[in-house]
């Protein structure tokens, strides 16, 4: 492959980078004197244009067939392109949410950072190479640290960014350490090549160097997907960040990280899974590998995330803990048979990202008008903003997993995938039971939020007007969630089709 064709395959990311440059320069050169609000809108449209062009490029690449550059550093296949499109959509929705009110007066830098983060996510989902995974995670994380700290006049924002950065830096060290050990053990960086090494060497799956490498890598990933005990940054970062940014961190970065983690575990080091089953009647069977680590992280995340969410009084913090719990649910599906587990995770992460984005959209639209993002501030907004209340109901119930919304089927499929691993013995039933019971617990706090929104006596004040740039994306998300909930096969067929064409 030569540089020209590489450039062709990278065109989407190149467009995004160019858009970021244009925004940075245009903001400084041409619009310095303008009013912040107007600048914000103009820059948002520039960003959207860039995102749209990149989406078109990816769409064209769908037709062109697969490609693999230099040991999986860049893998073009329908699945990866699909996820790139998902990330573009998420980024675009974030931009729409930020359009009405500038997060800070540095609007050019804000949108450029969002684009840099999007580029990092795009590279993360498209590579099957350890080095690329690390570099793109770093690009993604660095942009997000800055985005979280953007509201410089607010102390909480700085605190959130600082915590996010400190945890991120440490976990990056873990990740790099782990990846280098895996490289040392397998002598290759690309995930398919790593999987290949297991075939020749039966002892490889139990090689201590490899296992230590995997353990450290999982710590790094655990930070990105915010599972207990690496979740501590999440509530503070979400609370400190502006609502659209928090939504972006909770959706886009989650999608990209989960896709990378799933590929790493299921494509790369699947044979080193080990086991963490408890078969009927109560015969525990634990062997070293990533399975016990993931099972443990999933278990604590589900329990702690849900219990901690109950006590929260701030809506963003509540969503942060709920995202910790959801990360736990998703990990359960990793034990599924490869195809099933992958489908379930990809399905759920998309649904989850959209739903969460919608919930943060509601916070964005309302927080300033009801005087804060504490849950009690939203008391009785149903009369002032009936449409948003209905939307919030859809998002919360989907997160809680109530049919006929997409979150229900997503969870159902995740848990079914968790059981599919060891079907006749139902070895992972213990984890699935935890998941199901804890999601019953989660209804409590989702309903508490809805109670405040919808049941409490109507609050005073006139109707709240919502910018169309926020209303429409949220409405579309809600519709998608509803439709996928009734007919999940549509999305499942897509994902399964893409998986076959990998």
């Amino acid at each position, binding site marked *: 492959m030569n*540089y020209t064709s*590489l450039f062709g395959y*990278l065109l989407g990311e190149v467009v995004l*980078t160019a858009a970021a440059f244009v925004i*940075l320069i245009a903001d400084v050169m041409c619009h310095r004197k303008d009013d912040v609000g107007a600048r914000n809108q103009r820059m948002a449209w520039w960003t959207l244009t860039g995102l749209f062009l990149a989406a078109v490029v990816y769409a064209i690449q769908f037709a062109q067939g697969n490609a693999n*550059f*230099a*040991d999986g*550093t*860049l893998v073009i296949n329908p699945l990866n392109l699909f996820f790139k499109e998902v990330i573009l959509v998420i980024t675009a929705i974030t931009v729409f949410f930020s359009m009405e009110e500038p997060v800070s007066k*540095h609007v050019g*830098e804000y949108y*450029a*950072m969002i684009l*840099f983060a999007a*580029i*990092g996510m795009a*590279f993360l989902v498209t590579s099957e190479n350890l*080095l*690329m995974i690390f*570099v*793109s995670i*770093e*690009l993604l994380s*660095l*942009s997000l*640290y*800055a985005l979280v*700290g*953007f509201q*410089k*006049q607010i102390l909480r924002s700085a605190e959130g*960014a600082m915590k996010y950065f400190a945890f991120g830096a440490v976990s990056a060290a873990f990740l790099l350490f782990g990846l280098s050990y895996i490289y*040392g*053990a397998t*002598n290759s960086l690309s995930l398919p090549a790593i999987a290949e090494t297991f075939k020749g060497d039966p*002892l490889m799956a*139990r*090689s*201590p*160097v490899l*296992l*230590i490498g995997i*353990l450290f890598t999982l710590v790094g990933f655990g930070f990105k997907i915010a599972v207990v*005990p690496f979740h501590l940054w999440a509530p503070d970062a979400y609370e400190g960040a502006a609502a659209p940014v928090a939504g972006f961190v909770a959706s886009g970065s989650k999608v990209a990280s989960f896709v990378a983690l799933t590929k790493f575990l299921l494509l790369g080091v699947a044979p080193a899974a080990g086991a963490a089953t408890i078969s009927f009647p109560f015969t525990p069977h634990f062997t*070293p590998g990533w399975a016990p680590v993931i099972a443990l992280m999933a278990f604590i995340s589900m329990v702690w995330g849900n219990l901690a969410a109950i006590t929260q009084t701030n809506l963003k913090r509540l969503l942060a803990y709920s995202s910790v719990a959801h990360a736990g649910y998703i990990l359960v599906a990793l034990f599924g048979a490869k195809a099933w587990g992958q489908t379930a995770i990809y399905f759920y992460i998309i649904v989850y990202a959209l739903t969460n984005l919608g919930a943060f959209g509601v916070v964005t639209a309302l927080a300033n008008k009801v005087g804060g993002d504490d849950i009690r501030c939203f008391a009785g907004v149903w009369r002032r903003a009936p449409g948003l209340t209905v939307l919030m109901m859809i998002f919360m119930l989907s997160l809680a997993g109530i049919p006929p919304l997409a979150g229900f089927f997503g969870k159902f499929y995740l848990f079914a995938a968790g059981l599919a691993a060891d079907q006749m013995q139902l070895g992972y039933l213990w984890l699935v039971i935890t998941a199901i019971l804890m999601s019953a617990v989660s209804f409590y706090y989702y309903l508490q939020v809805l109670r405040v929104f919808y049941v409490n006596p109507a609050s005073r004040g006139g109707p709240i007007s919502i910018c169309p740039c926020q209303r429409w994306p949220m409405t579309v998300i809600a519709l998608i969630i509803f439709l996928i909930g009734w007919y999940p096969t549509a999305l499942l067929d897509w994902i399964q089709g893409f998986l076959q064409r990998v």
Partner: protein
Amino acid sequence: MNLLFYIFSGLMLLCAALVVANRHPVTSAMLLILVFFFMAGLFVLLEAFFLAVIQVLVYAGAVMVLFLFVMMLLDIRSSQIRRQNAPAMLAGLSVGFAFWVEFWLILRHSALPVGAPMNFDAGIRPIGKLLFSEFVLPFEITSLLLLAALVGVVLLSQKETR
């Protein structure tokens, strides 16, 4: 060779521990330079001369000078910044301990493989070639990463006038 490895890594670990334990920031920074030097020594043992040189030039030279510069500018009194936080220390130690237990369990349950030494030429020329062929993509993304970091730092460190 083996003896040198143990000397270098032993001294490196010692210095690294002192970096953490020391209460004076400037002394810590100096110790960190020592850590980098010993690490460069390890690279030399692996015959990765280029990396060793870069390690000294970039880290021990440029980065550390910057560190010291910032410290002098900020003029932080050592007593102000180093307060012992017992619970945090305990938590950190217990996490570290958990990792050691995990290490120990893994090592106990499986045999260490005897890997063949890898043969590669770690000179400037092959590294340069690799950087612009096989690893051109990570290399380019790193430049983007630096840009993002740059913008972020300028933005966050700038004083808000209004």
